[in-house]
């Protein structure tokens, strides 16, 4: 009998939401475990099988010296390594420290800063090791996660489009908020994946899936400036869960005084 590939799920600085997405595949979870052996998934099981592992899913960003070492060990024992979520692909919301002095942050939260070990920057996994595929989103879309796992099992490329949220919005026939003078919407520069969720709830996109391929953020913000938006508002708009993704970082920095 052919051996089923082994799966390992790893966590770095994060909220646990993206690995929870795997358990949230309620209807498909047991089917997935028939094709993959869960070898190392601490949130779900006490049992840890020895590596190396065929597929590693990595959640979270690198924020401590210990974790910067640990990710290299994980890469060495993983045949395929896929990062899941905004923390692992862009540094996450905790990358807001990258724009400030982290020492000040430590002292705001903790009374004895000497107990806290942290790096000055929160960085994505790909800054440290080679990553086979990055799945974006804060949180990831569980259907896309199933697609990535399915693609892996069948030895093909995942079908995860890199176009913008606008494409999804048009396909759903939602009235464009930017055209209809609705709230500011990051849809034109944001990676698809949520199926235009916020526009369908009458709110502007706030960039959970990070920059799309070739985003023109400068053009978007110059239109907003003409309609009266201030630099501090624009800065906050680009500084969320994907603040340290290149295109969003550069755009927010251009609005910093």
């Amino acid at each position, binding site marked *: 009998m052919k051996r089923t590939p082994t799966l390992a799920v790893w966590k770095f600085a994060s909220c*646990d939401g993206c690995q929870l997405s795997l358990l949230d595949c309620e*209807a498909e979870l047991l089917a997935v475990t028939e094709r993959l052996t869960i070898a190392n998934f601490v949130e779900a099981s006490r049992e840890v099988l020895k590596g190396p592992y065929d597929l590693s899913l990595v959640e979270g960003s690198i924020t401590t010296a210990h974790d910067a070492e640990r990710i290299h060990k994980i890469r060495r024992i993983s045949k395929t390594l896929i990062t899941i979520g905004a923390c692992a692909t862009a540094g996450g919301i905790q990358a807001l420290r990258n724009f400030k002095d982290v020492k000040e942050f430590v002292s705001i939260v*903790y009374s*004895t800063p000497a*107990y806290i070990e*942290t790096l000055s920057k929160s960085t994505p996994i790909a800054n440290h090791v080679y990553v086979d595929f990055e799945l974006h989103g804060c949180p990831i879309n569980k259907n896309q996660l199933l697609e990535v796992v399915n693609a892996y099992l069948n030895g093909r490329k995942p079908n995860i489009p890199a176009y913008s949220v606008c494409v999804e919005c048009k396909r759903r026939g939602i009235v464009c908020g930017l055209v209809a003078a609705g709230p500011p919407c990051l849809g034109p520069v944001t990676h698809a994946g949520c199926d235009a969720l916020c526009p369908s709830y009458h709110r502007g996109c706030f960039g959970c899936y990070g920059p799309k391929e070739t985003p023109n953020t400068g053009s978007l913000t110059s239109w907003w400036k003409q309609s009266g938006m201030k630099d501090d508002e624009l800065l906050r708009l680009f500084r969320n869960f994907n603040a340290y993704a290149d295109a969003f970082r550069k755009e927010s920095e251009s609005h910093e005084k």
Partner: protein
Amino acid sequence: MKNRTIKVDYLARVEGEGSLYLKTKNGAVVDAKLKIFEPPRFFEAFLRGRAFTEAPDITARICGICPVAYQMSAVHAMENALGITVDGQLRSLRRLLYCGEWIESHVLHIYLLHAPDFLGHQDAIRMAKEFPDVVKRGLRMKKLGNAIVTLVGGREIHPINVKVGGFYKLPSRAELGALTEELTWARDAARETITLTASLTFPEFDQDYEFVALRTDDARPEYPMNEGRIVSSKGLNISVAQYDQHFAEEHVEHSNALHSAIKERGSYFVGPLARFNLNRDRLPSAIDKAARAAGLTGKCTNPFKSIIVRAVETLYACEEALRIIREYEPPAKPAVATEPKAGTGYGCTEAPRGILYHRYMLDAKGIILDAKIVPPTSQNQKTIENDLRHFAEKHLHLNDEQLTWQCEQAVRNYDPCISCATHFLTLTREQV
């Protein structure tokens, strides 16, 4: 007598990264620690300078398991600062959203994280081979909880439809009505869950805890979710705004989560057991009867039985969701208008794991000047360590493997969420 050390470097079936450490000397436990090595993420620091409207979306990212709790505490604290009240059907919809999260989170813990301990399995997937129908029932209930959060909140993890003042978009009566059939099934499944959990074997472990939970005014006698006074089993009865006067956070070396204590008395206990013991009279009589039939006759002071209480609360959440859906009439507007203003706001709501406190100071433009967030797991940390000490002392006759597993189970009684508390768990048993 032999000296021993029990160590679990990375606790399983909890949310986040923690470890467990236990040291015994001459038959006494000399050290019991729940170490939290989850890296700090500094939410309270980077909330400074953000707009009041952004707090629900940013704080949701503290926890992927209970984002609704963060959103609820954030919006209530902001509304408190702005001097507005959200009532009527909007209030009910928030309660419905919370019912969804309670169901999803409690069922995840009961079936996937905690039951394998009682039934002797490493995890629910292996448990599914022996008890396929039980695991499938759990997964279907969890799916229903997520379906409620998805409909009202937009998606199950980090919902997008919650805002200060209410919602962005209201569901229609028909959309909510579509949940009724599955909810009715889940209500019956919750009754079967109570029977299942009551049939498990529990270690004798009754302790003298100070339970802390919200309690609503007598004018609105309901099981607490989004509002109420903070009360305890040892006489505390304060408004949410008085929280800082009575509770203190301490920074200890082995944890990236701050430890909370009641200033006058020390450790305390939050979560389903505390809510149930302090608000049992607020449960509908049929649910109280179901709890009684499951052996919960008086106050429950054995944390291992929290799994039964989670099942009782799951039943309550299903009944409450059905009631809200039945009585729902879409309000005229999805949200109450908000205008920024300077001030301080306090919010405390019942997350699945216990009370979650938020405090924000705003300037006149509604920009956050200061934020404080106290999650349930950091409030339970001291109590978890006390439990480990007391439990291990009574069970030193067990071999290392059994003692380690049961100590892990004692930690899992609290459904600790380490991602939350750091702003988890590893067992270490050391021989001196």
